[in-house]
């Protein structure tokens, strides 16, 4: 395996803290916030993160596959979650200390509950509005009611972080810019 070549493309409106571990070919979109102590590893293929995502402390995002790992817009990765999904849509919440394996693709408006393990042996796609919750990682379908409220809250959350984080952290800039 050839050595991993680092290539970080960070949008000028993204907020990525200095104290973040990045490896490989990584693209971070506009308005996305990466808290300190997060880890993003593009071991094989590149990782492309969309806009308006919030990636909290101790989150680990890994791409072990050759193909591009695409993460959509306005996703929330809570403290200590570990995600290896080859693709993630928009408006998803990966809750604190949950774990999602590389066999799972996440669509839109899904929630992986606190501490849930989603580790199917065979490849699987979580449909839109799939909620995984509880100690047994049970699943149910969300009606979608309240999603506008939630999206609004997510945006306010991101706005606040974009304002506050640069006051207390040094930021990272992309290679090219």
């Amino acid at each position, binding site marked *: 395996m050839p050595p991993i070549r680092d290539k970080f493309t960070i949008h000028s409106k993204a907020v990525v803290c200095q104290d973040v571990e990045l490896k490989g070919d990584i693209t971070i979109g506009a308005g996305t916030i990466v808290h300190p102590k997060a880890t993003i590893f593009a071991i094989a293929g590149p990782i492309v993160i969309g806009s308006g995502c919030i990636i909290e402390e101790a989150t680990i995002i890994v791409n072990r596959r050759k193909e591009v790992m695409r993460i959509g817009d306005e996703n929330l990765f809570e403290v200590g979650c570990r995600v290896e999904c080859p693709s993630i849509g928009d408006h998803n919440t990966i809750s604190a200390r949950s774990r999602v394996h590389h066999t799972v693709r996440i669509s839109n408006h899904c929630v992986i509950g606190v501490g849930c393990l989603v580790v199917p042996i065979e490849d699987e796609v979580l449909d839109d509005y799939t909620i995984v919750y509880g100690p047994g990682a049970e699943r*149910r379908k969300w009606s979608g009611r309240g999603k506008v409220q939630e999206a609004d809250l997510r945006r306010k959350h991101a706005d606040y972080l974009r304002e506050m984080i640069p006051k207390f952290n040094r930021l990272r800039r992309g290679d090219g810019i």
Partner: protein
Amino acid sequence: MAPSVLYHCPCLSTSDIPPPPHLPSSSHSFHPLNTLFFCEECDAVRCNRCVSVEVSSYYCPNCLFEVPSASVRAEKNRCARNCFMCPNCRNTLAAVPADPESGDGRIPAGVAEGPYIMYCNYCRWDSAEIGITFEKPTGLAAQLQKYEDSAPDSLEFDRLKEHFDAFLRTSALAASTSGTHHHSTHHSHSLHTNSITAAASAALARDIPGVGKYNPLARSTTGRGYGKDRSVNKDEMTEYRSRSEIAQTAGAGGGEPDVELMNSLEEVGEVASLEQRWENSWVTPLQTKQLKPIRIPLHSKRSKRCPACTHILIKPEQKSQSVRYKIKLMAANYLPGIVIVLPHMRQLRDELSKRNLGKSVAAQVDEPPPGMVAGNTYEFQLNLTNPLYDPIEVRLSVQRVHVSTAPGGTAEKARRPPFAISLPTAKFPISPFAEAWEYEDDEDMFGVEDDELGIGMGSSLSASVRGGREKDGRARPKTVGVLERKANKTVVGGEVVIGKEAQGNVKFNMLVSYTYRSDDAEGGDLGVHPSKPEIRRFEFYTVVDLGPIISREEARMDL
């Protein structure tokens, strides 16, 4: 399991001497020190089994609203404000405005407008799934009251209540009028029961807000029944006719509808789980889509009284936000605390951590296997802590276990672990508890004379084993006796000799007796004592469990 010391409360038997540790009744008589109370009036330990409990306040665990006890019954023991549990996952529900019908997906600035839905932040259940929305985000329980009151089961209960209420009233009336003609002792008894039934019927008759207008039918029929009832025999009840046939209520009790439902079932999630169903107090719906949000059950703060003198042992502050107590007589503030340390376990643990070094986390062993190998001798240490502001002198004695010689005694003997415990029999001091320590270099007691040591107990072990220990006991560093004194702690060493064929746990009863002197009333923690110096004595039993005995074969297999 770690070695443990439990304290005796003699409330279960007439004798102050606890049952021997190998009897099943032993576990019911001993309790962890932190769960015990101490009554100063009776100078006795009280446990949760013998105290009398009374509720001092009710509150909602979610909104912390204190519910006056008068309305607890009317509100059916649940929060009557805004607190609901998710019927799906039992998380607390939040009231949120429903999403705007159209627009760019942004919430317009300004005041959010209804309708509102109840929304579970965890599993994303929402009340619109079962067709419930609200006009305003407050007083949700009141808005939902009509659903609750119009439920067939609730109506049935109200009707049943009224049916029995009539009977209770007439029988109470009859008893109070006939009671006056009886003998005085009988009279007082019937008066007592009367007051109870009267209270119960009064409570049952209490108006439940909003109920009346929803069951006019039920009210009118029982009204007629009541009139008839009075004219006939007072002790006889009219036959109760239920409002609805039980089988007709869907999901209540099996039958054809359930079979049909099961036949057309597509996903297992359509059927409510037992946990979800049991949360409901009335009907336990079979289908997930029938589950309704449930008002959160109230919690209570309770005070406890001594069963003998009815003095309060513990009393919480009234306010639901407060976690403090007005009165708190915990046994841990009166009796010395005892913690067991097994030096050989500590050694094992150290070795393990050395072996674990450099190993991956998964391969590491956290705890050494507990247990003592049969035929060996082990040390143990008792760390005693004095909670009093006065010095105490403690004497430990191991309760002798008599080996029964009666027929069948052999089986008994085989079950009982044969071991011998050595503990110092002389009394030893423990310094008082104080905020500032002045006793750091007080080492008078370090090194009690060996002849002060005694052998506490020999259960069924031969004297030769004991003799052997004593002989080489002098050559080795001292293990039995007071090992260390520091601040208000004293460490006492003991030794256990385990028989070759021993089985079970090394578990023995130990009597702890101590004397304390109270010189002045203010200085002493026990303020009830007079100001003249007085030596007082207290004793209590404990059961000490040092852990299981491993047979010699097992021990060899492990290595």
